[in-house]
């Protein structure tokens, strides 16, 4: 692992390495949001709240108690997951816009809490967090998270989650405990949000409450929607593009946000289901097979 790290830092420019690491962290968090919003259909606009909880929990544990890094990662993710459970409960009674309001409110409460939280450095934030998040660690965790979300979504639990998104009444009539699965989708989403936050804190040296504001939540939601709701390749591509895009738009300087917005609008006009939202491997293979058949016939 350290060898890989040495080799990577030698061949990749630090600027690009930084973008790649942030991309990996974003992919992990967005795969989490994708479970809640993309797969189960529970609109969460407060994913930054979970990220914030993970970041602060792990940073405080590292700085105050000197706990091993990997344990703080787990602790950050676990604390976020507990709050995911708490936020998942109102989700049982609320839908769509109303749930969105609750999740926005939750993320704001978390932000304001850390603005006033003494051990978290209040508005100044926390600094001097050792940079323990390395490229190889992020790469490894990203692969592990992709593997397990893939397993989850193709499993019976994953399919049941999709069925809630598609038609909740029919899902209930099919014997699916929608209550249980909606809360689970929030817990799993929050866990990955918290994990990403913990990695983020240990990469940036410095965190403050404004790092996890409403725009951060929206940015992650954009990544899920752009890639295609419920699609793992979609979430990965969405996170990758929207991590790189702002960097590429540095050339247009102050018009950056304008271009960013315009590109989002254009993409959504031409691919309303997201870039990969309606593409299945099965269809791609089938299309290929049809072409082969045609080629044989001619």
């Amino acid at each position, binding site marked *: 692992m350290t060898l890989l790290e040495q080799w990577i830092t030698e061949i990749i420019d630090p600027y690009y390495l930084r973008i790649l690491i942030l991309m990996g962290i974003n992919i992990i968090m967005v795969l989490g949001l994708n479970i809640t919003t993309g797969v189960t259909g529970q609109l969460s606009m407060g994913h930054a709240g979970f990220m914030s909880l993970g970041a602060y929990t792990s940073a405080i544990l590292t700085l105050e108690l000197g706990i091993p890094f990997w344990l703080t990662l787990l602790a950050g993710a676990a604390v976020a997951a507990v709050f995911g459970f708490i936020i998942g409960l109102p989700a049982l009674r609320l839908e769509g816009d109303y749930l969105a309001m609750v999740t926005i409110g939750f993320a704001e409460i978390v932000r304001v809490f850390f603005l006033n939280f003494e051990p978290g450095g209040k508005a100044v934030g926390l600094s001097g967090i050792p940079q323990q998040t390395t490229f190889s660690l992020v790469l490894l965790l990203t692969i592990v998270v992709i593997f*397990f979300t893939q*397993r*989850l979504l193709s*499993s*019976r*639990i*994953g*399919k*049941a989650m*999709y*069925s809630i998104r*598609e*038609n909740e*009444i*029919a*899902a*209930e*009539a*099919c*014997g*699916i*405990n*929608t209550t249980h699965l909606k809360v*689970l989708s929030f817990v799993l989403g929050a866990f990955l949000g918290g994990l990403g936050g913990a990695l983020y804190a240990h990469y940036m040296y410095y965190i403050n409450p404004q790092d996890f504001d409403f725009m951060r939540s929206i940015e992650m939601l954009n990544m899920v929607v752009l890639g295609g709701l*419920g699609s793992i390749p979609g979430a990965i591509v969405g996170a990758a593009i929207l991590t790189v895009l702002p960097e590429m738009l540095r050339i247009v300087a102050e018009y950056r946000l304008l271009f960013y917005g315009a590109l989002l609008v254009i993409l959504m006009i031409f691919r309303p289901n997201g870039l990969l939202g*309606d593409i299945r491997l*099965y269809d791609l293979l*089938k299309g290929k097979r049809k072409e082969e058949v045609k080629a044989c016939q001619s």
Partner: protein
Amino acid sequence: MPIIELQGVSQEFGGLRALDGIDLKVEPNAIFGIIGPNGAGKTTLFNVITGIYAPTEGRLFFHGTDIASLSPYKVARLGIGRTFQNIRLFNRLSVLDNVKVAANWKRASGLLASLLGLPAYVREQRECSAKAEELINMMGLYEKRMEYAQSLSYGEQRRLEIARALAANPSLLLLDEPAAGMNSAEKLELMELIWKIRDDMQLTILLVEHDMHLVMNICETIAVLDYGRKIAEGDPAQIKSDPRVIQSYLGVER
């Protein structure tokens, strides 16, 4: 013992009494029809039986246990499967997954077993797929098992809903207007299918339908609802000649 028994079931929405003191007994292995004009409370009755609404008054027994206060998924797990008047499929899941979702809840393995792909989980899933494919084949949808449910034709979607309702091995199947929007050839096929399901799977079928030809041919007993009340019950011949039914629903032949 009747498979399902309603005792004085009423359902109110605000001031509206959608069901008014319904008594109903359905014997095992019957094909039981429920007819009546629009707004008579037929679908409400189905929604009460499947737990979507808890009845305002009355009691509701399934195999002798009171299910009036159970939530829909628990009712489904006890063995009541249903289809919907306005088709409710999982549109962006494949035909196979639509059926597998319903066949799967009784599997034992949890989150961890699914994530790690433990052997018990894999075996379960193989059984589940086999069961789902068998049902899909029976409904004549095998060729389309990998298509999205939303890409099926209307008649195919209705058949897929039936396959999905059968996936969890129910003992009572509720069909809400299964023939709606079908042409006469499709209706004939549907009748054959309903008989076949009843005989092969030994289950009881409760059917809401507006197509009188189908209802009179297929149902052994029929109950007629009007304004939330049961106004008649009997075999097709009795229902056809009942003056109240003729007046409120069937109309007079001229």
